[in-house]
């Protein structure tokens, strides 16, 4: 049985206008996303800026109230639970954030930061918590002396380690990693990624790994979902996605992975323009519309749900992109 099941999840935000601040339109940040995530598995989620990756992550962690759809986590439907009802569930689902400088309270010591999960969930005595904090620091490769320091005394990579320590404090089953390395130097990115892999092996964690480039995700994921304008375009096991991408958008993202040898430079199609506004998304296949594909008009009104083209390989089939 899968740990997390997301069914046709929609997260819309009202766009308010006029004198009375009525909702005049809605921003469809996540617009009908379905996937499953098994225990110990990593699902990579990639897409350009503004495609709804982070919103999807926040909706799954129930930091937002989903507009419609269903989120089932650990056998429980958590779609409509109130914040109070969610508290016990939150032990099992944590988040790691993009910017470690911003995700740690600058006025708390590392001890305060790492004790907070235990205090919120009312676990352990004062002495036990002190010991656990040191254990956590040990697990993420920081010295015990770090406990009494403030976040600004650490480098970006070390801060992210503190953020990771906070996320694993309650021994969760799922961690939503929201671009955990994109704010870090390239030299420390791999260290943090390897730490995440080690922790996954030791603790049997599942990751929903959000990133905006395929290169980082390749290193981490069992399966990869490619997201565009609030929808999943292609979902496949990582190897399959990299070797035989079906959707034009996946191909474009793969083309964008930098190759260190200039002599191997491929002829590549650069993406034109930006992701269109999710407030009034174009009808039919949104990516075909952006590429001004001649077959785009055929996709209007088509059933654009994901189809399984080969075992485990799901693609949005449309005349313009596949």
């Amino acid at each position: 049985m899968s740990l997390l099941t997301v069914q046709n999840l929609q997260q819309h935000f009202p766009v308010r206008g006029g004198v009375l601040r009525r909702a005049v339109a809605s921003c469809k940040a996540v617009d009908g996303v379905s996937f499953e995530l098994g225990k110990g598995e990593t699902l990579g989620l990639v897409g350009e800026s503004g495609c709804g990756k982070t919103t999807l992550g926040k909706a799954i962690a129930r930091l937002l109230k989903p507009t419609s759809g269903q989120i089932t986590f650990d056998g429980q439907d958590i779609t409509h639970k109130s914040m109070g009802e969610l508290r016990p569930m939150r032990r099992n689902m944590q988040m790691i954030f993009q910017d470690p400088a911003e995700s740690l309270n600058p006025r708390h010591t590392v001890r305060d930061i790492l004790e907070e999960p235990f205090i919120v969930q009312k676990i352990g005595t004062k002495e036990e918590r002190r010991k656990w904090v040191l254990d956590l620091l040990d697990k993420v490769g920081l010295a015990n002396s770090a406990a009494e320091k403030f976040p600004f005394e650490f480098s970006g990579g070390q801060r992210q380690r503190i953020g990771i320590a906070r996320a694993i404090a309650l021994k969760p089953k799922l961690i939503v990693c929201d671009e955990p390395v994109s704010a870090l130097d390239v030299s420390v990115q791999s260290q943090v990624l390897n730490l995440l892999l080690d922790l996954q092996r030791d603790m049997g964690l599942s990751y929903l790994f959000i990133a905006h480039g395929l290169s980082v995700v390749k290193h981490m994921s069992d399966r990869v979902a490619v997201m565009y304008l609030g929808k999943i375009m292609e979902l496949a096991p990582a190897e399959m996605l990299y070797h035989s991408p079906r959707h034009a958008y996946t191909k474009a993202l793969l083309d964008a992975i930098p190759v260190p040898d200039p002599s191997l430079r491929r002829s590549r199609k650069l993406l034109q323009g930006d992701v269109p506004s999710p407030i009034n998304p174009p009808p039919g296949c949104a990516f075909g519309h952006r590429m001004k594909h001649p077959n785009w008009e055929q996709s209007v009104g088509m059933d654009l749900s994901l189809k399984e083209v080969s075992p485990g390989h799901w693609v949005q089939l449309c005349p313009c992109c596949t």
Partner: protein
Amino acid sequence: MADAPKTSASLHRPDGWEIVRRSKPAMISLVFLAVLVVLAFTVPFFLPDALKTTSNGAFLPPLASGVDAPVTHVCGTDKNGQDLFYRLLTGAQVSMGVGIVGAAISLIIGTLYGMISGFMGGRVDALMMRVVDLLYAVPRILFIMIFIAAFDSVFKDWLDGIRLWSQEAGWKRLEEAAHYLMPYSKIVVMIISLGLVEWLTMARIIRGQVLVLRELTFVTASRAMGQSNWQILRKHLLPNLSTIILTYLTLTIPAVILDESFLSFLGLGIEDPAASWGSLLKDGAQVINPVESKWWLLAFPAVLMSLSLLALNFLGDGLRDAFDPKSAD
């Protein structure tokens, strides 16, 4: 190489205190205020009793000797023959006390209001801020005058009631406190009314800051582990607001002192025999005439009050610079 960690520690942004120390006006102001507070609350105890009462030597100029007793009036005497130096110091006690307590009241109201408004957001925020806008439109001095007129006697009755009730109940402490506060009921009402009008700016500033802070990811992280809203406000937002609160406290104190002096100058605030800088200025202004100049009665309180307000404002500016990350570079 033994001191290597030290040098790396000094590489980070200098903390607030270093910046305050570097700012000369703020440092001078801090020293001036500290000296003034210490003097105002200690020196009166050591002055001879002859300086503390009325005497026959009215309107003696500065440095004149007393008529009834062999004392020197450093700052002269007033129309009742009271020593001005002594009155200046007790006036400083009252003015500073009113300023600090009034600012503290406004601080508590403003911080709570601003935090709730900013944190709730949406319609609640809009409604709460429109209320602030409305209150801004109410003339402050008028509000204070009406408030004092309306509640002075009511408050006295309350105190009397509390005194009688605690007498019956046998709560000696409360009875004494109520009895002690009776003559000061007007000052207490005035302090409350000052606190009630001065919190608006504080509420706006705090709200603006909370709007910024609540979007930061450490708040999201705290929410993701199930922290309640109240605890997020208390544990995550309040510590990050403390510097702003401290800064605006130092800027609110002079505003309250100024309001109090204005009221006392109009004769609506502190009354004899108690004194404040405002009431001393009133006394000085009343005896001004072109024939005989009694300049000391106006000059000393005016200079002392101006310097104190200036110092508080400089200190507030220095603190603001210190805590504003942009000005730190």
